[in-house]
């Protein structure tokens, strides 16, 4: 049973909701539709270059265009994909016959999104912690992206557990990133873009799942306090958190079921029901682990008043890239791999995924130590 849409009386609020309130709510709910999730295809030029080099494909604009064309033209993509996050270059690219990518997506009922942050910069005086930049001209860029057809945005903050006694992430790292995320969200909403708020606590480290839970809870609580202070309209926003799991180097790895319980518990403590969807990042998990963990989250006990779904980059694309290898002849095969992976995650969103899609290849880790986007 879902919550009825925001009423016209509520939309009359004097608080700074701006002219896009109804649209933001509708789009956020569409992204969080049952059985659907997000394809994160917003790798920057540098990052996609790393993916391409692993399959010996040259990192030129034409190859980047062809690869994204492969993704967006996959037949039936809209069955399980409600939104695609794009990098700025991609937002302005077209298919072979000159049709804008945004039009291809819109024709399928898939909302185009846009990464609007400009990467991380170090916080001096901390233990290697960082903040995300990109605020200064954000207002103007959001307006430009909306005009081109984007309807949601994404901004990634990065937090790192470097000890098991709670010293990291530090309060300044948490607070600064929470404030920035709230400000970014507010600016997006003023320009008609649903903000996806992404406070990623990296899986790098050897911490147990309990430490991950305490830290993720602290981070997400700070984010929602900041968003309340900044008058962000939660009904027109989404959260993209990490799942709560053991560190990548931990001797004991929590099971999918434990991940499900730990993750939902943190969310039940911190995420207001007004948020229509929580779209998890994959953060280095293998394709199969990501799907199984998402399934476990959806099967965990207790209240789950938001949609719990995926916003996967590596965990949707790793096998696709392997199947494509840059060859036109492989496009259809690669698209089939994408559709199958999207369907697996769609099933996981419903708590109905039993495993096995993609075979052994899907078990390959996508983790890169100290990964830089």
């Amino acid at each position, binding site marked *: *049973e*879902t*919550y*009825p849409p*925001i*009423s016209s*009386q*509520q939309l*009359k*609020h*004097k*608080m700074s909701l701006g002219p896009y309130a109804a649209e933001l709510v509708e789009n956020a709910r569409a992204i969080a539709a049952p059985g659907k999730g997000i394809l994160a295809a917003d790798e920057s030029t540098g990052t996609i270059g790393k993916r391409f080099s692993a399959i010996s494909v040259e990192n030129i604009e034409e190859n980047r265009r062809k690869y994204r064309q492969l993704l967006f033209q996959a037949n039936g993509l809209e069955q399980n994909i409600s939104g695609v996050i794009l990098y700025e270059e991609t937002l302005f690219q077209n298919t072979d016959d000159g049709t804008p990518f945004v039009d291809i997506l819109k024709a399928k009922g898939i909302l185009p999104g846009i990464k609007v942050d400009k990467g991380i910069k170090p916080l001096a005086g901390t233990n290697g912690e960082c903040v995300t930049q990109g605020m200064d001209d954000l207002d103007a860029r959001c307006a430009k992206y909306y005009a081109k057809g984007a309807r949601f945005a994404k901004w990634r903050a990065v937090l790192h557990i470097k000890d098991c006694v709670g010293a990291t992430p530090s309060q300044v790292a948490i607070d600064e990133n929470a404030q920035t995320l709230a400000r970014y969200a507010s600016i997006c909403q003023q320009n008609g873009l649903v903000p996806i708020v992404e406070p990623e606590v990296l899986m790098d480290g050897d911490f147990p799942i309990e430490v991950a839970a305490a830290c993720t*809870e*602290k981070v997400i*609580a*700070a984010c*929602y*306090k900041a968003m*309340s*202070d900044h008058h962000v309209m*939660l*009904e027109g926003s989404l959260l993209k958190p990490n799942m709560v799991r053991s560190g990548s180097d931990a001797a004991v790895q929590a099971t999918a079921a434990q991940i499900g319980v730990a993750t939902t*518990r943190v*969310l*039940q*403590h*911190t*995420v*207001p*029901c*007004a948020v229509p969807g929580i779209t998890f990042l994959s953060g280095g998990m293998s394709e199969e682990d990501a799907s199984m963990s998402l399934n476990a989250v959806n099967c965990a006990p*207790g*209240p*789950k*008043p938001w949609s719990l779904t995926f916003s996967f980059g590596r965990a949707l694309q790793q096998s696709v890239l392997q199947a494509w290898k840059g060859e036109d002849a492989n496009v259809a095969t690669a698209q089939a791999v994408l559709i199958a992976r999207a369907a697996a995650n769609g099933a996981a969103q419903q708590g109905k995924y039993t495993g096995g899609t993609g075979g052994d290849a899907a078990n390959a880790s996508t983790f890169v130590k100290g990964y830089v986007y």
Partner: protein
Amino acid sequence: PGTIGDRFEKVGIENTEENRRLYRQMLFTNPVGPDYLSAAILDPETIFQKSDDGVLFPELLSKRGIVPGVKPHLKVYTLPGTAGETVMQGLDSLNVRCKEYYDAGARFAKWRSPLTIGKDGKISSLAIKTNMEDLARYALICQDEGLMPIVEPDISLEGDYDLETAIKVNVEVQAHLYKAMIDHGVYMEGATLKPNMVNPGKQCTTKYTADEIGQATVTALRRVMPAAMKGVNFLSGGQSLENAAARLNAINKAKGNSPWNLSFSWSQALQLPLLDLCKKNPKGSDLPLEEMAALLSDELKIAGAAARGEYTPKAGEGDHVFK
């Protein structure tokens, strides 16, 4: 004794310990109580009083399936140099008192932090911060002593603020509350909320229907209250039983997939009509206990129906109309 004393005096009842005991006994032994009441909040004096048969009230209530709770806070204190902002006192000896009340049979507590919206449509940051931090600490101490804490941020109906302002202020206050609770390490699954309903101020000249008030209340909670907390028991805060019930009913109609129980925790709405029954008797008479019990049974049925969204109010009940 102070508050009940005022209420007794207004209707000509002598404020003696025996009258307080008899009155509470009547409340706790109501025949339909177990059908509609899950819990009862008691003043510390009442925790140690007994029925005519010599049974301690907490035990009497427990045996009837009504969980006894206690109000362990002291009195409100006005912060010097402010425009009337207050804090609720009682944190210093709280753990000791909680232990006494637990040993006497109490299993939950309630702490009320009153707040007032000023003419500027705001509550001061100082008032919010200090009261919500106190509520968080109270909650933590209670849990350590085995009492489930009800946290009660009570925003007064005084003022002319509109419904949109009420939503905004309620969300602001509760956002601070839950952040403080998380920061203090309160066990969220083991705490519940007793808020005001989201109403316009008493002197607001805009008309609102009960349904609008219901939707505003659910909207506000959905913007801020954690799913982990299991229940909300709205205070009545001066609303008549009919208005409170009509609004609670509207709240339950607007609930959707919200994960909390939405119910009542009413003192004035249930008790003032009972006390009004004393007015027709000469000053200093005995309490009309049987008459009160009959009326209370009717009232509890109304409250229970509203808590299930099954109450049919009369036309106009629950609407806000400034007279």
